[in-house]
């Protein structure tokens, strides 16, 4: 037992220590986190009036980021499926890093919902037993359970793997295979439930379309794996992580399918809304063409569409998706594209026009932007530390031992 602790203490130390570049990176993240914290304390003090949200548009940038990150948490499952259902070795070796993305993404989701709360000290009202959960009626409670469960599953998986590896013991798959398999439907459920939060509101026709949950899943399965592609490329370059080219090519192939499905679903929605042209078209018209001269989101909506289509072209061509450079560019395009589409592009038009027909053009305030950047920095820091620990704990996965 002592030896085991000694061993893991060493790896914890390795995870924290690093070269100059690493220290600068961590210092930058820490500075951004501090800025976010200060902005958040001011928001706590003054109220959510520091944001640009108002009664007409009562959810904004925080909830947009929340939705996008629920999607990112999918990254894990698109690795788990080929690794464990199809026993694809090259991905099996890196699935751990996907599960760590899930942990980070869900943690950031929780932070984004937390900073959006008007009364954050009353968070315990959502807890079982001591709080007063409106279950099964409120989809928000479903989401609390789904996200909490997903975080727990992935934390257990990663915790077990790292503990075994850092102790130099054998990793026994049979012990945790049920949990791995459980994580697949659970990942689907977090997206579905998050989509249902919006989907179930008859007051907002933009969200009250049955295609919403499928679109959530499709776009999540684009952006999540795309983030994995970028992260793997970075870790390969800067952390000496050994990744088989076949693994990344397989992920890129999956992304090609999911972008195609995502674009198809978007097209289906566009057809239905524009062809039938009912009064419920207003939000979509606001998003793509502007409404009565209000067109704040129009350039962004088209940018997202162009990025998504360009990424599709890149991932569709085997040559391009197999070259690390073009593949990474494609991944970058789809990440930004989905960030716009499944962020502000989904949340804000739901409120425009509002239920009494008023148009309030929302755009995040500086305070919202700084807090948002702070949370992203916190996520990046968490991932950096976890990945560094994991790489240190898995010596066989690393090429350059000096890193």
């Amino acid at each position, binding site marked *: 037992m002592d030896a085991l602790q000694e061993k893991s203490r060493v790896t914890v130390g390795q995870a924290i220590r690093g070269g100059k570049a690493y220290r600068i990176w961590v210092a930058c993240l820490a500075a951004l986190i501090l800025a976010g914290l200060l902005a958040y304390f001011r928001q706590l003090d003054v109220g959510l009036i520091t944001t640009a949200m108002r009664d007409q548009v009562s959810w904004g940038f925080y909830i947009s980021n929340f939705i996008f990150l629920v999607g990112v948490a999918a990254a894990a499952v698109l690795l788990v499926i080929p690794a464990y259902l199809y026993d694809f070795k090259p991905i099996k070796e890196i699935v751990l890093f996907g599960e760590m993305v899930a942990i980070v993404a869900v943690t950031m989701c929780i932070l984004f919902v937390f900073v959006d709360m008007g009364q954050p000290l009353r968070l315990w009202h959502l807890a079982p037993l001591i709080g007063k959960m409106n279950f099964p009626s409120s989809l928000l409670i479903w989401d609390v359970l789904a996200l909490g469960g997903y975080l727990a599953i992935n934390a257990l998986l990663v915790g077990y793997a790292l503990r075994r590896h850092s102790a130099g013991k054998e990793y026994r798959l049979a012990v945790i295979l049920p949990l791995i398999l459980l994580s697949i439907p659970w990942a689907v459920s977090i997206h579905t439930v998050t989509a249902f939060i919006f989907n*179930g509101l008859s007051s907002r026709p933009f969200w009250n379309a049955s295609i919403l949950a499928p679109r959530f899943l499709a776009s999540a399965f684009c952006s999540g794996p795309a983030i994995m592609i970028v992260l793997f490329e970075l870790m390969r370059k800067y952390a000496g992580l050994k990744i088989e080219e076949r693994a990344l090519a397989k992920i890129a192939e999956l992304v090609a399918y999911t972008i195609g499905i995502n674009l198809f679903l978007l097209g289906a929605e566009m057809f239905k809304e524009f062809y039938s042209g009912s009064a419920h078209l207003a939000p979509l018209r606001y998003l793509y063409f502007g409404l009565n001269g209000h067109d704040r989101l129009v350039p962004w909506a088209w940018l997202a569409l162009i990025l998504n289509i360009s990424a599709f072209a890149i991932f569709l061509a085997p040559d391009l998706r197999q070259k690390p450079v073009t593949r990474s560019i494609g991944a970058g395009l789809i990440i930004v594209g989905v960030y716009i589409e499944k962020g502000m592009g989904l949340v804000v038009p739901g409120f425009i026009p509002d239920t009494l027909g008023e148009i309030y053009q929302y755009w995040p305030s500086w305070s919202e932007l700084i807090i948002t950047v702070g949370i992203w920095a916190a996520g990046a820091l968490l991932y950096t530390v976890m990945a560094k620990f994991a790489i240190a704990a898995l010596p066989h996965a690393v090429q350059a031992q000096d890193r």
Partner: protein
Amino acid sequence: MSLRDFPSPPSVKVDRRTFLKGAALGVATAALPLNSANASLWSSLFQKHFVEMDEDDRKRVIARLENEARQRYGADIQIGAADAMPDVKFGYALDLSRCIGCRRCVSACSAENNPSRNPQINWISVLRMKKGEKWIDLEGADKYYDPLAVPETDYFYIPVQCQQCENPPCVKVCPTKATWKEPDGIVVIDYDWCIGCRYCMAACPYGARRFNWSAPSIGRNEINPHTHYLGNRPRQKGVVEKCTFCIQRTREGRYPACVEVCPAGARKFGNLLDERSEIRHIIEHKRVFRLKEDLNTVPTFFYFFAS
């Protein structure tokens, strides 16, 4: 009345010193209601849900809240907690042929219900619509009309407030049961249980719910000291509020403030369970309709045409 008269105008621009001070105190105090002493801080943080309080809890909590409100507003605020009367279900009817769009209901509501004056919160929105084009065209409606005189010949008006739905989407979505429907039909909020997630605001099809984006500020001489726990008692920042059919008045057998003030007599209120009530007469004999009937929220707020 100038802004200076408010006890605590929400300053959105903050200098560096206050900013840092706020940062330091932020976690501890900011999300809590009012500036209470430590003991009261603790008890407000762990206050029970209203429906789970027994008689003693209610007395203790109300005494503390009254004390806090007194310190803050300098007025002798009384917080009642009268339960729904038996055999009463409130209903409301608004005569669109009489409404002249004067918005006196809006100001009477504000004077009665203690919403923040700065930033301004109103529970009633009066929508102005052009005659002769569409029937109810919400997208063409104007909430901020400002003519020299009303009524204007080319327009008609639709006041909208909480519709006290029989099937309220806000109650369905609230994650903490902080909002619920009382036996007399009023949808209420426990302001000390609301976590400020604003899911109810997304769910409401009538734009009836308002959020306290900053600490509400009300002039000392503007506060109405006659309040109800589930109605017009002073609110905190970060919680949702809305029309309660003036629960503090109607549970005492009085009319809501908007009904009382309407100079055109367009607003009718009464007990839906009483067959001889005016509200029942209107529903049974006039051409009534409800807003957005296709959503099946079943409002107990009716619109009608007497002429």
